[in-house]
């Protein structure tokens, strides 16, 4: 695998020399071959029950770092490959309008970075050496950063990109310290030395280091702040890939570390569960009040990371208290949600990108009625929405169901404290579900339904098939998982068992699988019922008189599209409830008493990410301004420069005199 990888890398470099028109197709070709090459071992490892397969050697700073594919890696490789594949083909269509504006070099950089993002994610799954992991980890950051700043002409985009870069670098530093601490006497670091270290040291502090490092990438609240900014700024295929797959590398890392953790499990599980609950609930709450469609989706990524985390946290607590039900269902649900989220979130981002391509805006308030103009995109977005809300018969339901059933089933056998923890998990997950529903009825309704609220939306048109077809692949997977979950849950269960080193007992796995069988049956019945009713409806109403008319305006007949409910008004009653947390600001000027014929007015609302503001912006601004004050030292006056030397010397003398150094 590795040797072919090198050939692909060389081939990818050639993109700089390909004529501008063919760069995209060329990259797609290279990437597809890469995907084929990497998928084969991944599938093989998933199919066989074997443990580690040494997959060749790797040139790396003299010593060869351990490389191996286990089933977790295989699982993630497949997830990465699927979304990368759909994303690159979608990109072919998405990037076409940019080609006159943006010069070939930037396209080359973009495609090359795209390739590298994929390649680094694949490598991350198989590398076990700490140093190599860090290098490739930063590769991933750099390449995704370059992808984000594709439209770097806009200062805002660039700023976002830099913000992303810095935060990721901070994450890298955490990981680095984590790896360095756990290095063995010989100086080797990596996942293998991790378990040795955890065997005879405190687990919690180092785990927290890793959790922060990986969690920044994953986007757990409160270390999420890059995410809602970077996703909207990136081109949509990149947002899809980043949100669908890249942030999961954080989850991957956490899983890898968790698999080595040996003590403090209960605390760790509680931390994960708590942070995940907060992420899930606050993420979706923030999502509801967004005006930018892609930012809304970005906050949903945080929410879904939260759901994944709830699953994992449940599993870890299960490990801690020795409850196999919690282990199996928690980890399986979490892992499956990784796959599910990558599917529906990429579809959602791609559809949002299609909408952007044809309307050139991302503001939810200026859409409307797109279902008539972009019918296929509308259906795709609808399916994505249903799936992300966790509604049957789509895939999101399966993973949420697994987590839910893990929570409910473990509730009976636990002590007081654990019951309360699990109950809060239930409450959180239920709230997340409800809020997601709220959010996506708003998103879908405001974007695709009703009358167009702006010129751009009225002129929208369906995008080219090359942008639609890749999404079909994901939708097919969504439906397949939703309707035949057993096919997927069984292997995922095996993966969870392998990662955390437990046997999945038959008495736990078989009821789960049979439940899922029932779900498929009921889902089938549901679809059949709906279809049947639809056919009956068609048959019955065929002979009836159907009149088309304007929407009922309760007697008011001069209604126009401006009187429609807007996204802000839809979210208003929620926003009122959530105001202490979201700090929504409304700006408008009231009507004066004497103003008989009110002039045109503007009304603005915007929300503040409270966590970002108080936890990051204010302290970092303060720190940077302090640091800037130091720059006064370069006064331009020679006497001061000499003075510094003199003062330094005196300082050294004083310190030496008092034996401080």
């Amino acid at each position, binding site marked *: 695998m590795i040797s072919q990888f090198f050939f692909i890398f060389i081939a990818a470099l050639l993109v700089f020399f390909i004529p501008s028109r063919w760069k995209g197709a060329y990259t797609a070709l290279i990437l597809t071959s890469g995907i084929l090459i990497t998928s084969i071992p991944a599938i093989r490892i998933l199919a066989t029950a074997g443990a580690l397969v040494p997959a060749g050697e790797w040139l790396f700073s003299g010593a060869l770092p351990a490389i191996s594919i286990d089933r977790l890696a295989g699982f993630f490789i497949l997830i990465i490959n699927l979304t990368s594949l759909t994303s690159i083909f979608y990109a072919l269509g998405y990037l076409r309008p940019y080609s006159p504006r943006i010069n070939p070099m930037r396209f080359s950089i973009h495609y090359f970075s795209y390739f590298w993002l994929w390649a680094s994610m694949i490598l991350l799954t198989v590398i076990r050496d700490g140093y190599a992991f860090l290098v490739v980890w930063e590769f991933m950051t750099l390449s995704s950063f370059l992808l984000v700043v594709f439209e770097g002409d806009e200062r805002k985009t660039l700023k976002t990109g830099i913000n992303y870069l810095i935060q990721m670098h901070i994450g890298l530093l955490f990981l680095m310290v984590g790896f360095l601490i756990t290095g063995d006497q010989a100086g080797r670091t990596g996942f293998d030395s991790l378990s040795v270290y955890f065997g005879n040291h405190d687990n919690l502090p180092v785990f927290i280091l890793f959790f922060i490092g990986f969690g920044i990438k994953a986007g757990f609240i409160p270390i999420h702040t890059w995410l809602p900014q970077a996703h909207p700024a990136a081109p949509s295929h990149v947002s899809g890939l980043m949100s669908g797959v890249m942030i999961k590398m954080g989850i991957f890392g956490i899983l890898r570390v968790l698999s080595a953790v040996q003590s403090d499990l209960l605390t760790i599980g509680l931390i994960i569960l708590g942070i995940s609950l907060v992420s899930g609930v606050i993420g979706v709450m923030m999502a509801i009040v967004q005006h930018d469609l892609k930012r809304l989706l970005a906050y949903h990524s945080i929410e879904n990371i939260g759901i994944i985390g709830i699953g994992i946290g449940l599993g870890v607590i299960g490990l801690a208290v020795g409850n196999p039900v919690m282990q199996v269902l928690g980890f399986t649900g979490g892992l499956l949600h990784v796959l599910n989220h990558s599917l529906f979130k990429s579809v959602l981002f791609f559809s949002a990108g299609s909408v952007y391509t044809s309307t050139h805006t991302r503001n939810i308030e200026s859409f409307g009625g797109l279902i008539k103009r972009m019918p296929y995109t509308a259906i795709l977005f609808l399916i994505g929405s249903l799936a992300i809300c966790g509604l049957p018969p789509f895939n999101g339901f399966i993973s949420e169901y697994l987590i839910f059933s893990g929570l409910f089933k473990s509730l009976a056998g636990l002590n007081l404290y654990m019951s309360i923890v699990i109950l809060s998990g239930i409450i959180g997950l239920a*709230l997340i579900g409800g809020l997601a529903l709220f959010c996506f009825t708003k998103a879908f309704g405001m974007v695709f*339904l009703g009358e167009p609220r702006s010129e751009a939306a009225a002129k929208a048109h369906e995008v080219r098939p090359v942008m639609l077809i890749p999404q079909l692949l994901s939708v097919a997977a969504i439906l397949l998982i939703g309707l035949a979950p057993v096919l997927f849950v069984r292997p995922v269960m095996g993966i969870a068992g392998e990662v955390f080193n437990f046997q999945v007992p038959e008495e736990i796995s078989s009821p789960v699988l049979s439940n899922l069988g029932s779900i498929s049956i009921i889902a089938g019945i549901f679809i059949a019922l709906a279809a049947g009713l639809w056919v009956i409806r068609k048959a019955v109403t065929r002979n009836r008189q159907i009149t088309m008319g304007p929407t009922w305006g309760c007697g008011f007949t001069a209604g126009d599209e401006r009187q429609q409910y807007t996204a802000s008004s839809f979210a208003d009653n929620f926003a009122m409830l959530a105001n202490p947390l979201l700090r929504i600001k409304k700006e408008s000027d009231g009507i004066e008493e004497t103003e008989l014929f009110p002039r045109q007015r503007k009304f603005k609302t915007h929300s503040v990410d409270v966590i970002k503001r108080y936890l990051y912006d204010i302290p970092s601004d303060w720190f940077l301004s302090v640091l800037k004050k130091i720059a006064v030292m370069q006064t331009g006056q020679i006497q001061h420069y000499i003075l510094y030397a003199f003062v330094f010397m005196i300082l050294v003398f004083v310190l030496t005199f008092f034996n401080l150094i």
Partner: protein
Amino acid sequence: MIQIGLILLAALFFPGIILRTKSIVSGRRGPGILQPLKDIGVLFRKGSVISQTTSWIFQAAPVIGLAAIMTSLLVIPFANFKALLPFEADFVFFAYLMAIGKFFMIIGALDTGSSFEGMGANREALFSMLVEPAFLILMGTFAMLTGYTSFSAIFSAFHMDGNPYAFIYGLISFYLLVQIAMIENSRMPVDDPKTHLELTMIHEVMILDYSGFDKALIHLATYVKFAVYGSLICSSLVPAGWNTALQAGLFFIIQMVFAIIIGLAESFRGRNKMFRNSQFILTLSAIALLAFVVVLILTQKLIN
């Protein structure tokens, strides 16, 4: 199969009983018990007016709504008859099936582009979001108490006699189920189906533009939903071990009492102020939490 038949049968009479109760209370004779069914029949035969703004979503919404409710019947048990397709944590499935119906009703309402329907949709979305935790906490307490996680298993294992706390718990759960049913079906005190001002409606304003066949489907779905919740209430009250015939009788009595309660409530109570609703619904979650505490006591986790 038997329970589906029973529930559907109950659903047929349920709205009529409510209507009749209200008429009698307000001193009128009122229409016959089957009048709502007749109305539906009329609607089925009628043509319809469809807004130009709408798309296929508008037309699909009632179909999916009804299909979801009907599908949910598959997991509802009756007496010691298990549900048709029971499985663990099927109440999660039940809740999400309800949700998918709501999802489509909401976007169906938004499809018209009407500000009134948008308002209704928004309220529906908010309230159903808020009620979800209450329902799931309640089910969680059931699961914790009985150790089972499907409707069928829970209700066949659950009985509220013996321990005084069990009785308290039974009362709380009964109350919660009734209230959740009220909210889910857009009844007092959260919503008033008979109000005549669109600004104060929730469910009714959402379906403002529906007419003919589609409207009939929506009504039908509402009726079945009532009966479904009614049967859940019934199951929580009546121990599963009792005689089947007795159970069937009790089933209908409870459904009828439920309908009469609704009718009485709608006659004597005013609707909440709209902004009070969210608080009211949250109260249900609080009460559910109380139920949780009671179960903690019952399962001897809290004391000793």
